């Protein structure tokens, strides 16, 4: 008998460990969504092979769409996780910053003519310039947050308002169109490879951030600044610099997403590009089980969270939800998430749990 109960205890411990692991939350959400789709319509998981208008072999299907669009979000989630952890707030200007980065990219590629026959600069040069611009805007947000002690969401509200205007201003409100086919590879398919390119870009970003976290102390520094910035100062860290750095890294992620977004349509629409993406990025971080008030973080959980969000979006689209109405559903998900993860509610739940256990034992 005692042996048996010990085993039972072990079993519950393992289960509890799984529950406690951060990655459990996005994983559970993913399974729930997958199960829902499996019951409602198994054809959701179908993947078909075909050729696109350029004659390239491509895979298509809902899962491929998730892989494709979710990758943008995953890249953003990397930067957003760092910003959230270091500053205890979120950057709500990412959508506007993507517009700026994309606009800069097109400006450099097009030169003075908005409909160039040939590219005026190599794509890599244009991309690097847009990276620098996006990082500068990131640094601007970072300085406001770190040195002027403005709450991150209010500080980034400035760029959130002005960003799309700046993006339009960079191109004199013209809509440049790139006719060069190789520019479109970043947002669609490289000839001969049937998997969408954004996924590869996301994988590269993930590998880079994993290596950076493995070989530098960035994770430790960011977490300690997020948990307590004055005690990390006493330990010889420079919290201001680390906060700015996290915003600059987010700027880099923004530039990469800007490249993908602009490449998808070989043009730009200032008011629509990356609209409401800030909500998705924050949601990805929250769904990854990371505290939105800063501190510890789990990068893998955030990235998985990003794909889960895209899974949710694609599912909603499948049931003919209008794109403008999507935010309402996602907002409901956010509210449920934050309510469930709030300390007050958790405490209540654990009390009820204990009471139940006590009754079982009794």
């Amino acid at each position, binding site marked *: 008998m005692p042996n048996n109960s010990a085993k039972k205890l072990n079993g519950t411990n393992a289960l509890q460990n799984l529950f406690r692991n951060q990655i459990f939350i996005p994983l559970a959400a993913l399974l729930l969504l997958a199960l829902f789709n499996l019951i409602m319509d198994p054809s959701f998981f179908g993947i078909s092979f075909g050729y696109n208008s350029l004659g390239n072999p491509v895979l298509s299907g809902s899962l491929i769409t998730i892989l494709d669009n979710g990758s943008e979000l995953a890249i953003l989630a990397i930067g957003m996780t760092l910003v959230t952890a270091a500053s205890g707030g979120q950057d709500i200007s990412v959508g506007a910053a993507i517009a700026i980065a994309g606009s800069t990219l097109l400006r450099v590629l097009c030169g003075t003519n908005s409909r160039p026959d040939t590219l005026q600069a190599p794509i890599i040069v244009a991309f690097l310039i847009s990276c620098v611009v996006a990082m500068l805007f990131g640094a601007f947000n970072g300085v406001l947050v770190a040195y002027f002690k*403005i709450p991150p969401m*209010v500080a980034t509200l400035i760029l959130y308002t*002005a960003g799309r205007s700046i993006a*339009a201003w960079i191109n004199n*409100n013209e809509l440049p169109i790139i006719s060069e086919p190789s520019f479109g590879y970043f947002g669609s398919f490289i000839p001969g490879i049937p998997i969408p390119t954004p996924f590869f870009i996301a994988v590269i970003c993930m590998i880079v951030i994993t290596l950076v976290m493995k070989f530098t102390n960035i994770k430790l520094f960011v977490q300690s600044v997020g948990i307590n910035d004055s005690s990390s100062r006493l330990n010889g860290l420079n919290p201001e610099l680390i906060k700015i750095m996290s915003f600059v890294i987010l700027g880099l992620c923004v530039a990469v997403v800007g490249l993908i977004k602009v490449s998808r349509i070989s043009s730009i629409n200032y008011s629509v590009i990356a609209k409401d993406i800030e909500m998705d990025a924050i949601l990805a971080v929250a769904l990854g089980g990371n505290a939105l008030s800063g501190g510890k973080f789990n990068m893998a959980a955030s990235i998985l969270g990003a794909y889960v969000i895209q899974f949710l979006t694609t599912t909603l689209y499948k049931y003919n939800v209008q794109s403008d109405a999507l935010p*309402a559903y996602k907002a409901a998900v956010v*509210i449920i998430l934050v309510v469930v993860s709030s300390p007050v509610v958790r405490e209540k739940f654990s009390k009820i749990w204990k009471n139940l256990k006590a009754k079982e034992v009794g």
Partner: protein
Amino acid sequence: MSSSNNKATSKSSSAGLGAKIKNMTDTNLLLTITIVVFFVMYIGAMIIQGAGFLKPQTFFNILNANAALIILSCGLSIVMITGGIDISVGGVTALISMSCAVYLDYHNGNVATSLLIALAIGLAFGVFQGFLVAYLDIQPFIVTLAGMFFARGMTTIVNTAPFNVANEAFVALKGTRINVPGMGSVNKLGKYVNAYVEIGVIVALIVVIVFFCILKWTKLGRSFYAVGGNSQSALMLGINVKRTRFIAHVLCGLLAGIGGFVYFLHVGSGSASHASGAEMDAIAASIIGGTMLTGGVGNILGTFFGVLSLSTIQNIVASAGLDQAWWTGITRAVMLCIFLIIQSVVIARKKK
């Protein structure tokens, strides 16, 4: 002048009283900056651009166009004084416009009921968000960001296409003009035209006066400042911190309801893109008006002048021929940025 003197004396005074005077001086200092900025800007516009700004009606048009924003900003100021923030007001305004428009036109409703609908929507958002923020202790920015997206999404769910309201009673109310005695100008035909305001302006002025009095002279008003200034000491003073925060959000929701209806009365149509960026304008107006993001400092009168400053800037930009949409966005953001930095400098000075 007096504010700088107070500043000097407060440094030497004892801690309890000192903190109070310091806060007072911050309020006065920031309020003075705002009012001076507004008058300098308006008088500057009168001198440089002349004609348009010399007509009283130009000023009243600014009021007419921004009555809703004034009301929304008042609500936001109250929440910000308690140390929170609410960015859902723009979305709520859009949702109210659309709901009222659909009710009036598709269901032949009457105006009084549509006002009740507006207030109910505003209150519902206020109560729900207030509960999450105050009693469940969730970050106000996340809660109200979700509220904003929820309201915007719901607006499209209620009705997708934008449309003008044709309901007769409503159109009559919308067109009601109240002449301002003693103000007016001679138009191009040489006829004297009296300056007018819309009903919304009267509502906005009443709101400003009522909430100015509440914040200044009631126990509730003072507890807002206490909670925002230092919630720990407010708790020790026996103030119910959670309930105070909750009430602040409810009031903000109620004002979003009133403001939403005033906005609807001004534009007379429902659209999902209505009041886009209104939350940002309201926050900017509050900050420009001297409400501190850290809480505990602020003044409804300052907020009123904050709204006027913001819209005067917009008018100046427009009449300077830079009428492209992006200039408005950029100037507003620059102004917000400048005032945020002024505030953080004031805070830094206070700490020293």
